[in-house]
């Protein structure tokens, strides 16, 4: 007779006693939750003992449970070491989820509109606890994911795992690589800073080159939502970043993993006869069960990876944030994200259509087609010398092109612009101008010149005095008969100076001294392009706690061809002469303001 009008736990208690009834109750709940493992089975698994009952209960969740039905119940022992997988596939998967979670957190504070996106970034840094932390994790994770997925592909190539029957697995993997790169790239725009806007402008401009013209133009319009990237473009990139591309990525991740399971992880090449695929036929003694071996291994890897990411963002890495995007001003030295540097490098070789569109397309098509082209059955390293050679050549080309894609390579800016930039550049790409990190108190107001450092140390003061005399006598009048003072007084410099009177750098302003020494070094390096050139740094204090640094470069114009000075037989550059046979004096200048609290010397890259 039941205690209650229906069978209940109380009946059990009555029948078996409390202790036993509770234990059996818990046991049943555990067995249902794990879809097959009771407490005893679990404890055996944790202790590393073989299962004591048959059929093996550890296989049950793979048949009955939703989550584990996606995972094989055992792996071949040969694929559970570091080699051959290096756990790169698992880590790629982990990054998909890591980025999804951190991304959703960021969405809490983000609105994809140009008016507020950048302000959102600022408030994330200024009032959101752990805001910077989460943003750094997301950004670092994104860049790491591109790298990990790429390494995963390399590994698959070197172990020959793309070969029959895994051609389609490889194909879906190439798609995932493309989606990963595009996810990372589309996220670039969202902070709406200068880096974002112009890196994406450059990236999107490559699409514009797609032939024929009408296709390229319209593709570009579709992506940007307008002739250039504005509110529409930001919204489109946001939608691509948080909806469209992740959806595709998740779908193809499913396809990819399904294929991985169907064919099982390919064994190290040396363990199989040529042409055989024994990955699915795992002898009993080579089986490594998912519970608990593989599971502990996977959790250990994500623990290590998470720790590395957290260490990096705590001390070594902060997601860049430059000034607010300005569609009307392109900053000097803008470049695409690093994983597209190879395309940028290729673009420097010439035609935009050929190198910006056809070349990457060929690379992707070649990657997709590779398993169908390389149909030799052998996966042994010794038999794949040609394939390895080709791959190493391609990798070298990739590295070379990426190097060529750096803003420093092959971009010929006039020397004056380059030097001004290297001295005053705003913090970007973890670089900043050499004069910025100087501590505020060392920015002693006054006028200084590189002539001081061009001379020997004991003649420095004399060199400065000589320059002052020259200027007082009317030397260095610039083109049009104006003086340096007048040049500085006009817009955009708008710096009113009573006189030009240079002094030597105070001895205790060591970092200012270093900055000027660097300046002089640059002037010397470029002395061919800037004949009789010298530079000046003028520091003024227009407001309390705010100093203004003006950098002036003046030189005699020389003949230039393709951005390089023309040299005569003695290796000297040839000055350009005006109608009276005189040298033409050129001048260029730039300025920045430094506030006492700006603390550039503490920023990364200082």
């Amino acid at each position, binding site marked *: 007779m039941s205690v209650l009008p229906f069978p209940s736990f109380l009946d059990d208690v009555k029948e078996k006693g409390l202790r036993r009834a509770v234990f059996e109750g818990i046991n049943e709940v555990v067995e249902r939750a794990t879809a097959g493992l009771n407490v005893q089975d679990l404890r055996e698994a944790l202790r590393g003992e073989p299962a004591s009952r048959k059929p093996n209960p550890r296989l049950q969740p793979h048949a009955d449970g939703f989550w584990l039905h996606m995972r094989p119940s055992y792996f071949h022992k040969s694929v559970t070491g570091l080699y051959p997988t290096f756990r790169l596939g698992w880590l790629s998967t982990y990054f998909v989820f890591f980025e999804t979670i951190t991304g959703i957190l960021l969405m809490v504070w983000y609105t994809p509109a140009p008016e507020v996106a950048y302000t959102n970034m600022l408030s994330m840094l200024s009032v959101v606890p752990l805001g910077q932390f989460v943003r750094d994790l997301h950004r670092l994770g994104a860049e790491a994911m591109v790298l990990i997925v790429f390494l995963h592909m390399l590994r698959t190539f070197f172990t020959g795992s793309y070969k029959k029957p895994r051609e389609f697995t490889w194909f879906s993997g190439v798609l995932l690589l493309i989606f990963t790169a595009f996810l990372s790239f589309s996220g670039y725009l969202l902070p709406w800073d200068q880096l974002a806007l*112009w890196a994406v402008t*450059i990236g999107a401009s*490559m699409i514009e080159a797609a032939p024929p013209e009408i296709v390229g133009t*319209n593709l570009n319009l579709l992506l940007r939502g*307008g002739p*250039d990237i504005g509110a*529409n473009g930001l919204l489109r990139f946001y939608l691509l970043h948080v909806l469209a591309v992740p959806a595709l990525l998740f779908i193809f991740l499913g396809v990819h993993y399904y294929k991985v399971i169907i064919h099982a992880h390919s064994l190290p090449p040396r363990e199989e006869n040529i042409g055989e695929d024994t990955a699915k036929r795992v002898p009993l003694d080579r089986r490594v069960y998912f519970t608990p071996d593989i599971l502990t291994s996977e959790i250990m890897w994500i623990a290590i990876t998470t720790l590395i990411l957290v260490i990096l963002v705590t001390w070594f890495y902060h997601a860049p944030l430059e000034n607010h995007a300005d569609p009307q001003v*392109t900053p000097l030295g803008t470049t695409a994200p690093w994983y597209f540097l190879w395309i940028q490098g290729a673009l420097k070789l010439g*035609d935009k259509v050929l190198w910006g569109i056809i070349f990457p397309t060929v690379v992707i098509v070649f990657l997709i087609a590779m398993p169908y082209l390389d149909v030799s059955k052998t996966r042994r390293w010794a038999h794949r010398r040609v394939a390895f050679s080709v791959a190493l050549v391609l990798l070298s080309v990739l590295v070379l092109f990426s190097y060529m894609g750096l803003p420093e390579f092959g971009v010929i800016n006039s020397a004056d612009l380059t030097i001004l930039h290297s001295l005053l550049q705003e913090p970007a790409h973890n670089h900043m101008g050499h004069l910025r990190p100087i501590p505020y108190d060392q920015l002693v107001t006054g006028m200084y010149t590189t002539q001081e450092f061009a001379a020997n140390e004991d003649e420095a003061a004399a060199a400065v005095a000589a320059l002052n005399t020259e200027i007082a006598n009317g030397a260095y009048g610039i*083109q049009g008969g104006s003086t340096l003072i007048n040049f500085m007084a006009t817009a955009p410099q708008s710096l009113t100076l009573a006189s030009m009177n240079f002094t030597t750098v105070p001895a205790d302003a060591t970092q200012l001294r270093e900055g000027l020494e660097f300046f002089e070094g640059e002037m010397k390096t470029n002395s061919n392009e800037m004949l009789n050139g010298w530079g000046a740094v003028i520091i003024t204090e227009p407001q309390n706690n705010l100093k203004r640094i003006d950098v002036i470069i003046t030189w005699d114009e020389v003949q230039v061809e393709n951005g390089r000075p023309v040299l005569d037989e003695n290796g000297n550059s040839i000055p350009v002469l005006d109608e009276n046979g005189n040298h033409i004096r050129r001048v260029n200048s730039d300025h920045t303001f430094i506030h006492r609290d700006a603390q550039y010397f503490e920023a990364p890259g200082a």
Partner: protein
Amino acid sequence: MATSITAGETKAKVPAKGKSAAEAQVSAPSRREFLYYIWGASMALLLGEATAGLIWFALPRFKEGTFGGVFSFPPDKVPAKLTAPVNIPEGRFWVSYPEAGVIVLFGVCTHLGCLPKWNETNFRFECPCHGSKYQLDGHYIEGPAPRSLDRFRTTLTFEDGTTAVQDSAGDAIPVDGRGKIVKVEIDTGDRIKRPGRV
């Protein structure tokens, strides 16, 4: 089952199967099969239309006065001959008056879309991204740019009521001796690309 079939047996069975398949192919499609094909084709057509519609839906369109439409430029702001060009940031163009006449340049670098700045000291446009340089008339000087600056089709109206329209080569419009300019219209939807670095 499968394990009991040897390689030889499988091979022996293939021709018979293949033959019946070939027979099925030459036979005329049945009514139902044909209807399926029609259905499939209609589905494909609809998908095609949907794709076209989607592109049309997402493709931005331009109104007058916004970039991509027609701009009118105050005629008194046209710079004097061989002086610094005038920038209209919202239209992304520069009105320039080199030796040959008035010309409107699209202010976006032909390399990768950055915005060159006018450098008065060097009297040329200089692109901050990859160092392309252009003359006052947009003519390529140096750098990685594949061609000279693009131009916008421009219509000038003079005080005597005559007009001058840029030809399709995009050459500058000569204005010497034609009197005062009373109207400048710039069609930012009609971009003329120069053939190469000319």
